[in-house]
């Protein structure tokens, strides 16, 4: 029995070691996650509260409140912009230095409450200006993230693995012997997956929205457009990964390498406001971030198409670039 076991063990080890792409990704993926997370979440203890400062924040640095530990002070360009952030609980308090200083706090925000206590302890004369506006419950805030994440997984793995299986089984080779072009094949995959995604996402939206009593603040038609563009960008990304490779483990590694950063950095679970600038740049470049940003703006704050146009344009561009690259690099056979 041992001889047979060793024989199969040895052969499987050779198979794994000689599949260099897989080997590299098996080592690279956990390493890159650890290094990336270290950069993002490592270092000194992170601030617990975020305070937006209007105007010449630097001039007010001498104030006692600005020496409070674990409070991060962020310059905001105008009161209106700061209030926008307070209403959405992206910052816990907005402060306009002066004599006396004025501050705006979201009365529905628990962290706003604590930050206000800290400010008043440092400066009891600060003038309170409560912000009206409904705070977004975490479940409502999370809802678009869950939908977008589901779209991401379904598109990347659904499309990537199907194309890979077709290639491994020789089905793609058989299709290559017909008048079907790579563009036609890829387009069929895109449209098929897009249709499935729209049906599934609509169903999920209806079920979850009913469960948590959620009502979209913005247009459902616009939300549909965002979902179409978001799904297309993810499908295009999945097709690009699966365009050439024939190793299941390598494709799995590559898909994981794409999904992990998107899952962690796109703001599905928590906001990245206050994280280092370069992290926000990386996050903004991820299609899931733009997809989610547009979806949240419409679902939670009732944004119109003009407000989310940059995200929509970005998703459309990502789709075109990756589809073009996928079609160009597409291989019919192993």
């Amino acid at each position: 029995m041992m001889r047979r076991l060793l024989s199969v063990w040895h052969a499987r080890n050779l198979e794994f070691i000689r599949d260099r792409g897989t080997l590299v990704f098996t080592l690279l993926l956990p390493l890159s996650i650890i290094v990336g997370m270290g950069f993002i979440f490592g270092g000194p203890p992170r601030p617990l509260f975020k305070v937006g400062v209007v105007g010449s924040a630097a001039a007010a640095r001498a104030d006692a409140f600005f020496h409070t530990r674990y409070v991060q002070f962020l310059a905001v360009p105008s009161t209106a912009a700061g209030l926008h952030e307070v209403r959405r609980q992206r910052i816990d308090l907005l402060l306009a230095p002066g004599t006396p200083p004025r501050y705006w706090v979201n009365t529905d925000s628990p962290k706003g409450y604590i930050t206000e206590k800290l400010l008043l302890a440092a400066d009891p004369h600060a003038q309170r200006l409560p912000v009206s506006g409904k705070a977004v419950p975490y479940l409502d805030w999370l809802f678009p993230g869950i939908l977008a994440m589901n779209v991401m997984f379904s598109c990347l793995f659904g499309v990537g693995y199907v194309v890979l299986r077709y290639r491994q089984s020789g089905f793609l080779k058989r299709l290559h012997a017909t008048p079907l072009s790579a563009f036609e094949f890829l387009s069929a995959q895109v449209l098929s997956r897009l249709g499935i995604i729209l049906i599934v996402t609509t169903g999920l939206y209806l079920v979850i929205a009913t469960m948590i009593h959620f009502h979209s603040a913005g247009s459902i038609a616009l939300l549909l457009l965002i979902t179409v563009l978001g799904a297309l960008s993810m499908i295009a990304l999945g097709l690009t990964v699966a365009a050439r490779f024939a190793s299941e483990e390598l494709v799995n590694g590559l898909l994981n390498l794409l999904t992990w950063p998107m899952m962690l950095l796109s703001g599905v679970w928590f906001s990245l406001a206050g994280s280092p600038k370069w992290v926000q740049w990386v996050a903004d470049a991820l299609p899931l971030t733009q997809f989610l940003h547009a979806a949240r703006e419409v679902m939670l704050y009732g944004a119109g198409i003009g407000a989310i146009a940059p995200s929509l344009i970005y998703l459309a561009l990502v789709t075109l670039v990756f589809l073009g690259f996928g079609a160009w690099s597409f291989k019919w056979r192993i």
Partner: protein
Amino acid sequence: MRAPILEVRDLLKQYPGVTAVNGISFSVPEGMCFGLLGPNGAGKTTTIEIMEGILTPTAGEVRYRGEPLGERFREEAGILFQATALQNFLTVRQSLAMFHGLYAHGRDIDELLKLCSLEALAERDNRKLSGGQLQRLLLAIALVNDPAVLFLDEPTTGLDPQARRNFWALIDSIKAQRKTIILTTHYMEEAELLCDEIAIVDRGRIIAQGAPRALLREHFAAVLLELPRADFPDGARKLPLQRIDADDRVEITTDDLDATLRTLIGAEVPLKNLRIRPANLEDLFLELTGRELRA
């Protein structure tokens, strides 16, 4: 002489350290069944895949109706690969319909089901077909566009003898429709039965080409005597006979059977297990290369 539907000119296909096809040229007239015969690894599949437009040659070219392979060829060619998987969860009829939709013109699906004896299996999941049934479905898919030229790459490999014979009958009926067929095989019986002309391929080159019977007539004067190697004593090796030593037997070719038998009796070679038969393509391959076809 019919005009060639396919012309293969100086094909060369090289992989790192290996020349799979080494200067192969031939032409196939319309309506002919042309066979590429050779052992595994001879270069048959590489040649046929270049002809199908699936592989790009290192050098040389393939012309279809006088033109390089292109759109017209893809519309008019039907292909049966050595191994093809189909989409999961599709029935036989749905698989045919999918491929039917890829061509500008095609045959009626019910007609194809009937031609390939798949009527009773039309609604069956294609994953639940036997080897012979799946091969018939793949042949039906190859015929879905009513092709002018049909490529069959080792179509009966892996089938049991009964399924193989059924498949030959099917190909014969397609031949009767004046389709051009390009067939690769390492079964000499298949080539002899189906092909009007064959090219014997070995180590990437054509070593003989012609009609099967003409080739046999050219290389074998009359009959072939076969003896187990163990029955052929060392002393008899010096006899003036046209002899080939195969793995387990000795083959003697002769156009004077009586004289050869007298020689063998004179040398006291036991004839209890002697077999006399006409030469076939396997013998021809052995004659040309000194190796057996299925080695």
